């Protein structure tokens, strides 16, 4: 009992020290192999030097590599639906966000926009062929949400104690390869008071990786190999069927 009181005192003692965050990932490297059907990443962490009083809120964001996306709009022309206008924008290929509560419950629109928190606040340098870029950006978010690549949930941060938290991040099978960033924000009274970011990599492994590298380093040999494989299989099948009939 005394030990516990002492521990609590020790934790509360350095009142001058700032409240900060530490966080870690269940893995910092995700390998895509032939049996890959999606996975789950666990982000865990703790608030250090917790200050008493007030409410703490934690936001966890996972951002995939930025990609140049082309969105086109179909128009009804002469009875047919034809692509008629387009917009190009740089946006993350994967985006996950969750918090202890709905974002607007503890932060105002300006703050959320400044940190690009929430699917509605992703900043894109959009160039639209017909002027208004907003509907294209909205359409992209819709498409990516359907594909399971953009995810926003309200209360995905599980508080395991007053200061320990954990988040499960779903990684779909169609996750793009590349370098990801896991960002954790600590909110106090509507402002970010601490933040931490950890890199995370998604890459192919084993046979898949070798095929991918072969196809990109010597494409002509790869093409020839693929054609020969096809023809050899076709040839082999005739022997197999002749033997059986």
């Amino acid at each position, binding site marked *: 009992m005394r030990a516990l009181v002492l521990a609590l005192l020790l934790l509360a003692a350095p009142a001058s020290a700032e409240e900060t965050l530490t966080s870690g990932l269940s893995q910092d490297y995700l390998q895509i192999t032939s049996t890959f059907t999606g996975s789950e990443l666990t982000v865990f962490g703790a608030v250090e030097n917790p200050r008493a009083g007030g409410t703490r809120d934690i936001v966890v964001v996972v951002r995939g590599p930025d*990609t140049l996306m082309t969105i086109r709009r179909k128009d009804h022309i002469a009875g047919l639906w034809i*692509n008629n206008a*387009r917009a190009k924008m740089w946006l993350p290929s994967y985006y996950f966000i969750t918090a202890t509560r709905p974002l607007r419950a503890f932060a105002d629109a300006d703050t959320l926009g400044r940190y690009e928190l929430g699917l509605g606040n992703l900043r894109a340098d959009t160039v639209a062929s017909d002027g208004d870029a907003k509907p294209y950006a909205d359409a992209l978010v819709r498409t990516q949400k359907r594909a399971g690549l953009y995810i926003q949930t309200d209360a995905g941060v599980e508080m395991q104690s007053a200061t320990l938290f954990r988040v499960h991040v779903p990684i779909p099978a169609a996750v793009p390869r590349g370098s990801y960033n896991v960002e954790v924000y600590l909110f106090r009274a509507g402002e970010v008071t601490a933040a931490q970011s950890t890199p995370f990599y998604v890459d192919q492994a084993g046979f898949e990786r070798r095929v991918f590298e072969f196809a990109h380093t010597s494409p002509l040999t*790869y*093409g020839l190999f693929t054609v020969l494989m*096809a023809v050899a299989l076709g040839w082999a099948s005739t022997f197999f069927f002749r033997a059986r009939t």
Partner: protein
Amino acid sequence: MEIYLPIAQMSVQWPVILGLGFVIGFLSGVFGVGGGFLLTPLLIFYGIPPGVAVATTANQIAGVTFSGVLTHWKRRSVDFKMGAVLVASGLVGSAAGVWLFAVLRRMGQAEFTVSASYVLLLGAVGAIMLNESVRTWRARRDGLSTSGNRSGQHNWVHGLPLKMRFRQSRLYISVIPPVVLGFIVGILSAVMGVGGAFVSVPAMIYILRMPTNVVVGTSMFQILFVTASTTMLHAADNYTVDTLLALILILGGVIGVQYGVRAGAKLRGEQLRFLMALIVLVVALGLFWQLVIAPADVYSLTGATP
């Protein structure tokens, strides 16, 4: 039962892909078509990126067709001289088609052009074949004589210069129509991801007047080389050929084609053409429907480059 495709960068149910390969292989054996006009849209519908679907379908057709070419070679139903003319002009056509496809894709019209050309070509070809096969079928039922080999009849093709003798087909015709046909089929192969048999088979029968028994073998011979070159071009230029996807499709395909060839041998020429006309028309109608009905979302993601 799922497997991750390294180039398409997604996982698929491999039994579904295997079954798809079998069905397409079966049709290929029956009708002497590559089946690309069905396989490409089906793969895209399953969620494979269109670029990968087009390029990998070309490779699957090459593999499946090879066993068919061997089978027809043994039956001496391949006109190698006609095949060589078609292949030579087809290679030029496929290079032109890859260039055309790149231009269309930059304009954002690749998808629409492919669908619209499918509708027009399949619709026209299907209607002509359906009409012809029904008439032949009726004539046979009514006891009228129908000659299978109509090489005695003359049409405009016989007025053209540069005549060449094709002994296997018992033809002495100008080399211009086969060269033009080969070129067109080459373009179709690169742009639509098809072997092009739905154009070349009817053209060989109705324009070149080749005997039906060598048409299928010769068409397969041509398809083998044109799709092999299309695969190489796509692998080199666009990195869109997925070996693993092709492997599963071909395994299903080569088995299907063996059963298909056997089933096809039991059917008469006009019955084959009637069935193929029906399949072609159904696909054309399906694609036309997609162009006409309002899409669920008028916005679509058409490209993502890192």
